[in-house]
């Protein structure tokens, strides 16, 4: 008797705290059902797999963005860091002929380094993340464009191509990478000091500081992690299109922010869960795919995606205000 009561209480709290994510999940299911009826191609194994593949890059970037936003920040430089790491890697691997694995490693280092620099400035000079990453957005892309002199690189080695296009037991490699990223992110947020501090800083920076947390260290780590995921995305994109360019990734940061928002993470920080972001990225992927299948023009697609973002967050806000 006592036990069932306790259990009910626990469940209640589960629903209470994950309401947003649960409704996003339900929305995703409903969306899939509707698309299954509207198009005959949607609910086929091949298409579903391709939805996952198409969503993988945005999911990965959104995971990093989730950390940033939970900590009370924002990262507008995501797309540019993707471009920086992919373009330099491509050039080094194809034109200079370095080992592709070394190339990938360099891409990751570039991602982490640019993130870390931004984190350092945010933490030490105490400039709002919005400004620092806005600057970063043009700086990183500028460096990328300058480095490759605006030209593209084609024909990458097989190892890279496999990462973009290969699969394991039918699951595309980028999807596998995304799954690993999400497991790691969940682990970091839930099971490590770093994750707890991320929430604490976003929830109340003063209290966090007075608890002896080194805000600067955590912030630098957060932006570095976000940068690392940009590097990973840069590698995956290169493999997928079998080419690299300094102009990829424009606007990726906005998609990532959108996924985080749809996933129920509070834009003012301190609150959010990683699985919500995954759902948000999937919702965006499914909608894009569905609209493509229905041959809706890209212009309309933009409008619809915009409405979905504002709509999703509004429904959540309205429900919360009612309470």
């Amino acid at each position, binding site marked *: 008797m006592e036990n069932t009561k306790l259990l009910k209480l626990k469940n209640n709290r589960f629903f209470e705290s994950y309401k947003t994510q649960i409704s996003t999940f339900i929305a995703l299911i409903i969306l899939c059902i509707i698309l299954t009826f509207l198009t005959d191609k949607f609910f086929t194994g091949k298409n579903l797999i391709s939805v996952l593949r198409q969503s993988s890059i945005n999911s990965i970037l959104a995971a990093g963005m989730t950390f940033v936003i939970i900590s009370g920040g924002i990262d507008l430089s995501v797309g540019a860091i993707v471009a920086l790491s992919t373009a330099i890697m491509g050039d080094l691997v194809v034109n200079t002929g370095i080992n592709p694995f070394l190339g990938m490693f360099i891409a990751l280092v570039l991602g982490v380094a640019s993130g870390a620099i931004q984190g350092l400035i945010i933490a030490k000079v105490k400039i709002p993340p919005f400004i620092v990453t806005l600057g970063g957005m043009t700086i990183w892309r500028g460096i990328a464009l300058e480095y490759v002199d605006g030209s593209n690189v084609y024909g990458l080695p097989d190892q890279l191509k496999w990462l973009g296009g290969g699969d394991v037991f039918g699951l595309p490699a980028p999807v596998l990478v995304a799954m690993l990223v999400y497991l790691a992110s969940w682990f970091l947020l839930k099971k490590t000091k770093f994750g707890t501090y991320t929430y604490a800083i976003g929830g109340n920076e003063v*209290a966090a*500081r007075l608890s*002896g*947390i080194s805000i600067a260290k955590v912030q630098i780590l957060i932006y570095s992690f976000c940068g690392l995921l940009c590097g990973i995305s840069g590698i995956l994109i290169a493999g997928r299109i079998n080419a690299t360019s300094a102009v990829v990734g424009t606007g990726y940061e906005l998609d990532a922010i959108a996924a985080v928002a749809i996933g129920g993470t509070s834009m003012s920080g301190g609150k959010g869960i990683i699985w919500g972001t995954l759902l948000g990225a999937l919702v965006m992927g499914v909608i894009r795919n569905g609209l493509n299948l229905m041959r809706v023009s890209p212009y309309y697609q933009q409008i619809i995606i915009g409405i979905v973002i504002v709509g999703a967050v509004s429904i959540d806000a309205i429900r919360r205000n009612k309470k």
Partner: protein
Amino acid sequence: MKEKTVNIGDVIFEMENVTKKFPGVVALDNIQFNLKAGEVHVLLGENGAGKSTLIKTMTGAHKPTEGTIKVNGEVVHIEDPIHAQELGIGAVYQEFNLVPFLDVAQNVFLGKEPKKNGVIDREYMIKRTKEVLNMVGSDIDPTVMVESLGVASQQMVEIAKALNADSKILILDEPSAVLTEKEINKLFEVIERLVKKGVGVVYISHRLEEINVIADRVTVLRDGQYIETVKVEKNNIDKNELVRLMVGRQLDDFFPKHDVVPGEEILRVENLSTHKLLKNISFSLKQGEILGIGGLVGAGRTELVKAIFGAEPADSGKIVVKGKEVTIRTPKEGILNRIGLAPEDRKLEGLVQILEIDKNINMASLDKVSNGPFINEQKFNSVAADMSEKLKVKTPSLKQLVCNLSGGNQQKVVLSKWLACESEILILDEPTRGIDVGAKVEVYSLMNDLAKAGKAIIMVSSELPELIAMSDRILVMHEGSISGELKKGDYSQEKILKLAAGEA
């Protein structure tokens, strides 16, 4: 609606069988309550008894799950705080709700800015703000930024804001918690003035001495339940009886102080100074000692303890811990030197409101429950459970968000956090602000236990009875320096107040 004439003594507000449930908590269970014009009605109860919830249902911030509410004899459904204002109900909440970067007049008129020819009528705003401030006997300039005001003045602005709406009912949730003795007396004058005009005042406080001065009737709540409403005689309340009603048992000793023979010196401060305020502060602290620091708000007590802890490092001077000179320039370094600081402002500095209780408790000591970067969940949970049990934090679950706790229970979480740290030098800045008598006794016993275990405690307090009863020694501060040190057996309220005023 036609205005009824209301006479002093008429019932202007009534709650019948009101129940309010939150997930997992019944905050109010079948409550009866009424308020008469021209009376001060005190709500009394332990932390989490439901006092704040009761007034939030009065102001429409919460809607009752069941029950009826009547204003001037008519049944009403209070939709939201704006509706409550229209009904003449104004409130000053436990946590202030002013916008720091707007001026006083803008705050007083927030949301109901007067318009003239389509633009805001600044002139009227300022004039009217002056009027309401006059009503509360305050001469704050309506055009100064709220941010630049002290807490006491901010509270006057809050009251003025509530009165601006022509409130017939004024609710004050623990207004005295942030005020000095002098300011409290002024507040009481304001309340008396309003009561004479027929305003009904609902007053919440944990300080029985205040209730003694101000109350006409007292309604006691316990665990969300209505216990009793008693009429009290001014300056002659039966403290023990009220406490018994409140906690359900007799409390025999309000200040259970045990004497501990002090051990070795653990902390010495020499000539600590800051450009802003502190001037050549020197003192020493022994293991097992409880050192009280008294003084007025603004005397630099908080600055001093923050300097020792590293939150706002001093510009010059020495800090010696266990005979070794140390540099403490960040809270982290403070914690490494086994110093803990429970800050006075729990909302802004003490807690992350939107995080769970267990995370807040472990926040400053995650290293202790982690292997490298990884949190050991078992240890994490057991520390949280241990601490919350020791301090009797009232909550259905440790996964509850701190913002859903009552004020006093939040304070207990702050203390839990610093106990979890196993600090050897524990600095408590206003440790019992806003916590109920029962919990106060618990905190005092805890301080005793810690002292017995050889920990050294610095307690900053504005509550003289507490300072006098619990300290082994008292330092009094005035304008950034120590104006006197009082030895045990040598203190009295008058002596402390004199030193605090810089008159000795």
